[in-house]
């Protein structure tokens, strides 16, 4: 990510996480780790967001919520699954209420492993997401962008 054209905004949703990954995501935004230096801002509004960060696995209650958030985000968009729960269900994989990782319902672009995922790893994932976002944008432009 030598040059980033725009500041990517980030939307965080807590799927069915244990909170461990959530507080690490929040920790990324605070002074010690500070993702804002990459121009990343945390927003609560899906229509402002470029990157969807999901922690925790998918269950029948939050499935429609996650799908809705994703569909409200403008293209191009990148989905980052944070923590092993979001990657494949993790510790809770065999729980009766867990359908599995986020990729059961959304196309996940980047998987950040760890339980809890460390802020360093999350930042790495976000930085990769920023690069991927640029790629997707370039691809969209070459295909005629949103006007097609």
């Amino acid at each position, binding site marked *: 990510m030598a040059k980033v054209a725009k500041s990517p905004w980030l939307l965080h*949703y807590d799927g069915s*996480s244990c909170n*461990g990954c959530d507080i690490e995501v929040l*920790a990324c935004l*605070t002074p010690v780790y500070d993702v804002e230096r990459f121009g990343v801002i945390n927003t*609560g509004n899906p229509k402002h967001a470029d990157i969807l960060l999901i922690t925790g696995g998918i269950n029948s*209650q939050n499935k429609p919520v996650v799908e809705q958030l994703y569909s409200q985000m403008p293209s191009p968009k990148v989905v980052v699954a944070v923590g092993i729960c979001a990657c494949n269900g993790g*510790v809770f994989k065999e729980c009766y*209420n867990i359908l599995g990782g986020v990729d059961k319902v959304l196309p996940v672009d980047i998987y950040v492993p760890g339980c*809890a995922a460390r802020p360093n790893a999350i930042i790495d994932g976000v930085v990769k997401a920023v690069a991927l976002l640029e790629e997707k944008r370039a691809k969209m432009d070459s295909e005629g962008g949103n006007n097609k």
Partner: protein
Amino acid sequence: MSTRTIVPFGPQHPVLPEPIHLDLVLEDEKVVDAVPKIGYIHRGLEKLVEKRDFNDYVYVIERTCGICSFMHGMGYVEAVERIFDAEIPDRAKYLRTIWAEMSRIHSHLLWLGLLADGFGFEALFYQCWRMRERVLDMFEESTGGRVIFSVNKIGGVLKDMPADMLARFVNNFNEMEKELRELTNVFLTDFSVETRLRGVGILTRDEAIDLGAAGPMMRASDIAIDTRKLGYAAYEDIDFDIITSKDCDSYARCEVRIGEIFQSIDIIRQAVSKIPDTEISIQIKGNPNGEAFARMEQPRGEAIYYVRGNGTKFLERARVRTPTFTNLTPMLKTLKGADLADVPLLVLTIDPCISCTER
């Protein structure tokens, strides 16, 4: 009479750190009723006890909640140890106390930060979380993990803290204490902060009893109950007073939690000065047969753990009653009559941990 409107709030909402849904019934800007809907992060981890043996289950129960992960592990192992009637080494008890109090400091700082964010004081939020990182650094140094560090085992703890490390930690906390005084004074004395907290979200003493409030929420309504006084881990040997407040409002809740941060630092100091030099764990043989309870004072209030074994390596039942669950009804009480703009703040004042609540 003005017309009533129902405003859905959550599960995904800019100010909500965790998914909970409330249907707010409004008359103009006043909330007249609030109907909660939970279950967005229900996983069903209590049932997993049938698939993981009782030793491995420690790692599952620790993931009930990432904020008080250590305490969940501690509650569960204490309950299982009670089935075995096992007396764990004293050093393990002290180490558990120290880690538990460190968890409380980190949790309360996290909450203070979120509260500051809730009333729009971004700089204060950052400062609280900056201080919190120093506690996490100590977790990392002593256990290897930042938020979930799995050091409990049935029969003791897995890691020891050498004397020089403990001394250094006490030093760190002494240094932090000065900075924390400055930081928390902003919460207690700043004019704008006070206008947001004073007199907002009143929960009277009787209401707190009737509705079953727990933890700082209850102590802020002038009820002096603290499960630590029951003397689990090493708390029997520790001298501390229960912190309460008479104000019954959001300010009081803030005050109580701030008091508890300094109290925890003091408990850590006492524990480090008294820690005996023994083994850190004992071997426990056989499978649990019978049932037991354990009660813990978590940062958010009293949590109860129940386990029942049938002589096999799989427990029959493990149950957690978490403080946020009991605090939801008092929260709904405080919401009634509040301004819509105060709702996020009031939801925050119970220090909600939805992951615990829904498990």
